[in-house]
């Protein structure tokens, strides 16, 4: 082929379009930038966009289409876990290469996927630490949408909190369906739970569209961030842009990136993005940074390997370092997850976050959580001699590999 094809597998319609369209545009922007720099290996990059329409089986079908019909060299795609799970067997069967840019529940490491979003230990654990140490929170509400990411994250957090001596009755766990829009009772429950005289915080893994009505209800029932702060892992600048944030000032989010971080890289990235979208008010967010890092690392790895051959690139990826947008360097680890800094920010009334806390250095992403009984003993290491995504250090076994 005379071009290097970059597949973009993000939903442009359906329920997930709201989040994923931005990432499609980000990839397109990166491709354009790269081409301005002369492409890769002397070839131009060509983006191939398809729309899996928020339909999970369609993700698998489209992945297959990208890999076999379009013969793309790399795929940037997926947002929800289920879409990734749906695509995974196809990618592994056809030995494709995918970059997954969203924070997720972990418990996975595939030879063919690089995870550039945060693992739970890069988001949830530091956030809880912050609440506990800085805000002296003693009572916890773990509120989430009923799917794998919140379930897993909350399992991890529950174990973690109990390890730290939090009593059972000081933890309230609540799950709601996708797109839940009537939060009256739950918010009022939270209010009651938080009125027991101990400092209470909400750790929210509420997903997507459900956040807007949730925060609106918080505001209306007068729960301010000093009373009961809410720390969210799925609410970024983009989500806030659909909200009047004035009543929400002070609620928190934990990410690896905020648009408000003042670095030159970030400034450049934001200008580029706003120019690309032709909208001076467009915001950036963490999954975009993850896409940015993933793309740059891939470009470097391809250059380094001198080919787009998946196996070569995969090996070249490990150990790649590229500057992230918050001033440090992101490193790709042997488990296909990144080392990144963790930031905690407070919502401001202009819809941005203000960093109020930050890890000292970078935190390496954990593919397998240390706090879950099933995965305590598992590690992922894609270098020789192990070359395994889930190696059990106890039984010295590597199971469940499809490649």
């Amino acid at each position, binding site marked *: 082929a005379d071009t290097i094809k970059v597949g973009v597998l993000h939903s*442009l*319609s359906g329920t997930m379009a709201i989040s994923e369209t931005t990432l499609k545009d980000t990839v397109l922007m990166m491709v354009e930038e790269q081409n301005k720099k002369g492409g890769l290996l002397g070839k131009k990059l060509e983006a191939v*966009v*398809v*729309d*899996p*329409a928020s*339909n*999970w*089986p*369609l993700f*698998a*079908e*489209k992945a*297959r*289409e990208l890999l*076999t*019909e379009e013969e793309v060299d790399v795929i940037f795609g997926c947002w*929800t*876990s*289920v879409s990734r*799970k*749906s695509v*995974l*067997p*196809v990618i592994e*069967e056809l030995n494709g290469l995918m970059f997954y840019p969203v924070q997720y529940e972990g*418990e*996975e490491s595939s030879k063919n996927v690089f995870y550039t979003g945060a693992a739970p230990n890069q988001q949830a654990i530091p956030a809880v630490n912050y609440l506990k140490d800085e805000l002296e929170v003693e009572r916890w509400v773990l509120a989430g949408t*009923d*799917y*794998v990411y919140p*379930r*897993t994250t909350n*399992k991890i957090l529950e174990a973690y909190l109990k390890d730290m001596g939090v009593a059972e009755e000081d933890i309230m766990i609540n*799950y709601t*369906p*996708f797109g839940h829009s009537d939060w009256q009772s739950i918010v009022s429950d939270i209010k009651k739970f938080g009125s027991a005289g101990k400092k209470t915080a909400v750790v929210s893994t509420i997903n997507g569209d459900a956040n807007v009505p949730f925060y609106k209800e918080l505001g209306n029932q007068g729960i301010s961030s000093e009373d009961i702060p809410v720390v969210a892992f799925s609410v970024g600048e983009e989500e806030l842009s659909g909200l009047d944030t004035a009543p929400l000032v002070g609620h928190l989010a934990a990410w690896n990136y905020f648009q408000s971080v003042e670095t030159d890289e970030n400034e450049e990235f934001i200008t580029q993005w706003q120019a690309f979208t032709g909208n001076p008010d467009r915001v950036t967010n963490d999954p975009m940074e993850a896409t940015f890092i993933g793309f740059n690392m891939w470009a470097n790895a391809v250059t380094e390997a001198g080919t787009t051959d998946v196996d070569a690139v995969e090996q070249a990826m490990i150990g790649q370092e590229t500057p992230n947008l918050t001033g440090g360097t992101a490193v790709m680890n042997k488990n296909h997850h990144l080392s990144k800094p963790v930031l905690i920010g407070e919502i401001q009334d202009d819809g941005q976050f203000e960093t109020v806390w930050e890890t000292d250095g970078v935190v390496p992403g954990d593919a397998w959580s240390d706090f*879950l*009984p*099933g*995965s305590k003993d*598992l590690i992922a290491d894609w270098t020789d001699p192990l070359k395994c*995504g*889930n190696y*059990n250090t106890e*039984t010295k*076994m590597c*199971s*469940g590999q*499809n490649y």
Partner: protein
Amino acid sequence: MSKLLHWFSAGRTSGKYTLPFVILLLGITLLASAANLLLPESSALHVSTYSITLLGKYLCYAMLALAVDIIWGYCGILSLGHGAFFALGGYAMGMYLMRQIGDRGVYGHPTLPDFMVFLDWQELPWFWLGMDQFWFAMIMAVLVPGLLAFVFGWLAFRSRVTGVYLSIMTQALTYALLLAFFRNEMGFGGNNGLTDFKEILGFDLQSDATRVSLFIITALLLALVLLVSQRILSSRLGKVTLAVRDAEARTRFIGYRTERYKVWLFVYSAVIAGVAGALYVPQVGIINPGEFSPINSIEIVIWVAVGGRGTLIGAIIGALLVNYAKTRFTAIMPDGWLFALGALFVLVTLFLPKGLIGLYGQLKSKRQTLSTQEASS
């Protein structure tokens, strides 16, 4: 047995296009399969595995559309919840495939599927028992949708719930199932559903041979279902069905217990949907609650309407065409394909009231009037 065969062959006169259609369907299936397995990839005539899985998926949808058409087109029961039966069949198959993984899951647990391990389940829930047996799982794939349809239908038809009330109830049914299956506590993998299948009956699911076999089996079953349904609908039972559709009360007054007819037809249709679901899952590699979504069920109805309600072949063609359009549109114009699809639906309703199959009729009658005009002038 011979009586059954006799009955079968006696119906061949009606539905004169069915047999040619079946032959065409099977012919294409075999040619495509051969082109996939026998021709080298470089050959211009080679059919890619991608196309084979795609075709296989379409055929499953076609079977589902057929199921809806039987009760909607012929019996007037507009089910907005047929996706539920499809998904239940799919889940039965998915559970079997899940258990086939055995200890090859990421956590290496001998019996528990991965999602149960990391959600801390200690043992297999009772409804997963026996699902490691293919025959049992297949019985479930038929039985569960059938039973649900029976209970629901028995309740609804006996109390004479009809029309939109029935439609919305079916929608409520699938919606409730959607919510239930989303729950992780249910033990069906929550939102992620069941995925990461490895093999079926010991055959590697990722090998071309397995894929092609599944495709051929789907085509054969579709043909079988089509023939049997055609035969049933051309029997007197078919006439009673139409009578029920057009004037149910009147049908009762000439002595037919219409609710029983409706229940059995509903069950038959649900079973077909279940079979379609069971075939669908190994071919697409995932089953999740999204299949229960009411919008999905509405889409099925739309395939039928596009193809031509009240003709079995129409339903099949509608499902194939709409899904093909979707595949093409999402690739060619990822940003605007909904415009195209939406417009397709609107235009078909406005200009092809009898669906695509009706187009054939329209053309024919036009040709006839043309020729009679010529003859008269």
